Each structure stands twice: as C-alpha cells, then as structure tokens.
C-alpha cells in the first residue's frame, strides 16, 4: 500500500516485513530513526524479534555475526564512525560467508566532524567482501532491503544496502510497502547449512594457514562475481512479483543519441534526472544517465556495454581517496582500460560532507567537459575562494 513515509520509517517497516530473528544496532545519526522505528515495532508487538540493545557498533555487528552463525536471520544498521567501528567485524562476517543484511545511512567520516551525507563510510569497507547495493530513492531502498535478505541467503554473502543519510533517510515521500503475506510468499525461510548446532558441533573462525588462505580469498571473489547474476535475477523476480524493479546491476536512461554519459550512485541520480529533464533540450544537451546500483560486486561488463560508443563518461563520486582522486572514477577507469575506442573519462567528487547538489549540476557538469583545461579529477563543488592559494 502506498503511504507517505519518512525513509527511515519505511526501512524499519521493510526490515520488519522480512521478519528477522535478531536485530542488534546502536543508534548513530543519520541512521537513528531506523533503529528507533524498529525498536518501536518490537515494543508495540508488531515485530517479534530478538532486539539486542548494545553499547557500540562493534557489539552490534558482533551480535549479528553470532546470530547469523547460529542460523538466524540477522540485521543491523549504522553509518559513518559506526561503520568504521564495525570494520573488523564486517570483514569477519564476510570472510565467514555469513548471510545477513545491514543498512548504511551513508554519512561522511570524521575529521572534520560532519553528520552529513557522502559515501566515505561504505567506501572505507569496500574491500570487506560485502555486497554493496546503492539505492537512489526510498522506494528503491525499501525494495532493495527486501531483496537483500533473499540475495544473502542465496549467495551466503552479507549484503549492505547503502542509502544516502538525511537525503533519503529523513525525507518523507510516497512509498509502496508490500504486505507481510506478499513478502512471506516471495522470501523463503532462511536455511543455512553451516549453522552452529550443538548436536553437530563445528568450529567457526579458525586459523587458516597459508596452505588454504589464497583459496579462501579466491572462492570469496568467485562468489562475489557469481552474485552479479543473483542480484540481477532477484531484482527481475521482485519486479515480476511486486510490479517494480530497483535497477538490477545498473540502469541506463536518457537520449540514446547522446555522446556523453554520466555515472552516479544513490540519490544524486534523482537530481541528475530532474536536471536532465529540465536542461537537456537547452545548451547543456542530452546525456545518458547510468545509475550504478551494484557497487560490489562491480558490474564491469554491464558498465562497458552501457558506455560503448560514448565520447565522454563523467563519473560522480561522493567520496575521495586523497592522493588518488575519485574511488568510483578510478574503478570505472580500470573497467574502460583496454576497451577499443574507450570514452574519455572525467571524474568529479560532488556533495562531500553534505554539500547540497543543485538541479543545475547537470548543465554544469556538461559545460565543464567543454573546457580543454579541465583537470581529469576535481572536487567539483569546492569553492576555491575559501582556500588559501597554496591549497587550491
């Protein structure tokens, strides 16, 4: 049923529809409302789960790890410093190939202290071995959350659903939530073969000697590559059941005659869509908008197909790797390398630490590629006037 809901409230309801056995979370801005709403659902008797209030994100992730190892459907949510405090456990969850779902309400990482949105937090655990899916709207965040529980069961890879903090978590908009019966019919019960069982004891998290470590990593990488197909088919199957898709691995929209493509993740896509609708007929001209949903695993082939024939690809990063540049941009460059007639790549970081991204960004980005002196990477919306000359 369609309702006007705040993003966080909708996520809590979506998680509740998936009937997790264990929820363990520690509140942090801008994830707080998700945990508050889940806690309220439990208190009101609408969600029957083991809700574990913990004293830190490290414990939240640890409780979820233990629960998942015991065969429970486990969930947590965090952001920013919380992701970093969880980092050690996140690598363990993925390395142990435990199924679980986590929402990241994407937020910048200190210092300087910022409570506002960018992608530095989930990027910091990019290599932890979790699947990372980015939502461009609250509807996508809700639908992707439900899909995540199925993907994680099928792949035995933990899934992180990334949604822009505040921009999505704190925005009220119309959201269609399925009924619990519909979700029950679509999401099979969790059956985890390796679950801890006193009747059939086994060890988890043992030392792996050099005799086996490379094989473990190889098989994890292989599982991640194979999950590309699972992510795509799960979204297609969801669309068949619920009448809407969340964008598979990536989606392409816009004018097929365009010579320029823009690659972006998360809520920035919506603003670019609005800008494209507004300005494509004007001086800015048309573009292809490529919405990347699956960041890990990285859909290299789908991305090559999407940009083939373009003159220029603009990649928007909501994070920066100081000393290198954009993170997504660097990865797209790696994917384009060796491609015959690869498009020219331009990479910009945008909206770091919550800098508002205006609708005019669409035309500004397209205008910038006409400047022959433009750098290959920039913090696009940084105001150089605010910096001493030596830092510009």
């Amino acid at each position, binding site marked *: 049923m369609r309702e006007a809901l705040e993003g966080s409230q909708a996520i809590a309801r979506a998680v509740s529809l998936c009937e997790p056995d264990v929820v363990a979370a520690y509140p942090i801005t801008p994830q707080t409302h998700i945990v508050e709403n889940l806690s309220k659902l439990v208190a009101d008797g609408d969600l029957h789960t083991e809700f574990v209030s913990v004293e830190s994100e490290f414990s939240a992730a640890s409780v979820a790890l233990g629960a998942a190892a015991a065969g429970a459907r486990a969930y947590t949510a965090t952001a920013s410093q919380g992701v970093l405090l969880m980092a050690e456990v996140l690598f363990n969850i993925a390395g142990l190939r435990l199924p679980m779902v986590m929402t990241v309400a994407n937020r910048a990482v200190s210092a300087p202290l910022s*409570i506002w*949105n960018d992608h530095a937090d989930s990027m910091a655990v990019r290599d932890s071995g979790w699947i990372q899916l980015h939502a461009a709207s609250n509807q996508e965040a809700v639908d992707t959350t439900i899909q995540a529980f199925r993907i994680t069961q099928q792949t035995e890879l933990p899934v992180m659903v990334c949604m822009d903090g505040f921009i999505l978590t*704190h925005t009220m908009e119309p959201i269609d939530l399925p009924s619990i019966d519909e979700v029950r019919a679509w999401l099979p019960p969790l059956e985890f073969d390796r679950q801890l069982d006193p009747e059939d004891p086994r060890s988890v998290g043992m030392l792996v000697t050099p005799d086996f470590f490379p094989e473990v990593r190889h098989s994890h990488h292989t599982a991640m590559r194979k999950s590309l197909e699972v992510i795509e088919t799960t979204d297609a199957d969801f669309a068949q059941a619920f009448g809407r898709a969340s964008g598979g691995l990536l989606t392409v929209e816009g004018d097929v005659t365009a010579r320029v493509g823009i690659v972006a993740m998360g809520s920035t*896509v919506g*603003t670019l*869509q609005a800008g494209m609708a507004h300005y494509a007929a004007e001086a800015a001209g048309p573009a292809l908008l490529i919405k990347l949903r699956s960041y890990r695993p990285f859909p290299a082939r789908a991305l090559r197909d999407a940009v083939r024939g373009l003159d220029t690809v603009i990649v928007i990063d909501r994070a920066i790797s100081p000393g290198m540049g954009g993170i997504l941009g660097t990865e797209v460059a790696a994917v384009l390398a060796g491609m015959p007639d690869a498009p020219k790549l331009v990479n910009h970081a945008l909206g770091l630490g919550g800098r508002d991204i205006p*609708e005019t960004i669409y035309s500004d980005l397209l205008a910038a590629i006409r400047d022959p002196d433009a750098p290959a990477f920039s913090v696009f919306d940084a105001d150089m006037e605010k910096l001493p000359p030596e830092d510009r």
Partner: protein
Amino acid sequence: MIEYRIHGRGGQGNVAAAYLLAAAAFQAGWYCQAFPAFGAERRGAPVAAFVRVDTAPITLRSQVRNPHFLIVQDSSLLQDPKITQGLRQGGAMLVNSTTPETEVAGQFGCRAVCLDATAMAIEEIGRPIPNTALLAALLALTDRFPPEALATALAGRFHGELLDRNLALVERAAKAVPKAAWAKESADA
C-alpha cells in the same frame, strides 16, 4: 511542481509541519517530498524544512532554493533579510506574527499574510506550537488541497484529545485568513 520552505526555530515543529504538509498533499492525490535542512537541530536555533508537491513523481533531491511559498513560524526571524532569499516572483509568505501585514509585505517586497498562530495554539492546544495553525492557514490561502486532507494527515500523527484540539485549531486558523487569496499563484506553480 509547487515548492515550499518553512522557517522556524528548533522546537516549533518545523519538520513536523513539512511532513504534515506533504502528507496532506499525498492525501489529496499528489506526489510529495518533505525533508528538513539537515543539521543538528537545537531548541531555539533557526531551522528550515522543505516541501515539494507535484502531479508527477519527484526525483529532485536538492534543497528548495526558489520556493513559491514561505512559512515563517517565528516573527523574530524577520530580522534576517535573507529569509525570503530565492522566493519566486509572485511568491508569498505566511508569518506567525502580530506585525501588520503591510509592514511585512513592505519590508520584503512580496505578498504577506500574518496570523497570530502562537496565541491561537495556546488557546486551543495549550502549547505555543504554531505549526498546525499555520498549515491550515496556508491550505486555506492556496486553496489547492481540501482541509480534509490536512485533517487526515493530522490523524496520522496525533490521537485522542490532542488530535481533537488540533482539529479545532486548524478549523479556526483556516477561517482567520482570506480563503483562496493565493489560489492563482498556487495554480500557476
């Protein structure tokens, strides 16, 4: 698309006002989007919230820079000349104030309606929270969504006696402003 910006001070229910306005528009069959100017909201600090409504899905996620309508929940914010920044040509502001409307309109060079929403709220709900009265006045002025849409939105947020008192408050506030005075601006948006 109609865009609104709500200014107030932390504790006056600015985000609640934005959510209620969006929920009312949703009840009336519109697409809606409401969000706060994200920050560490502190009681008394100047804060803002944004609302968009449209007949088509809304994808734009930036802050509202060029609102059609402004709600100012605290008259002390009129000291800030930037309060009307970006207000569209022909736009209008609704202010919780006892200041004469002509004075506010003259100060900012736009149409203005003033309503003593705080006094009304104290009388009806016993608390100086002006948001629901101002929303009712805005709906009456713009005449875009029926008052029942706001009543339904309020029922989604309040219950029991507090709901009843708020319903009485919004009915009174709606009658206190000239009905459909901004209907043309609202229809043109």
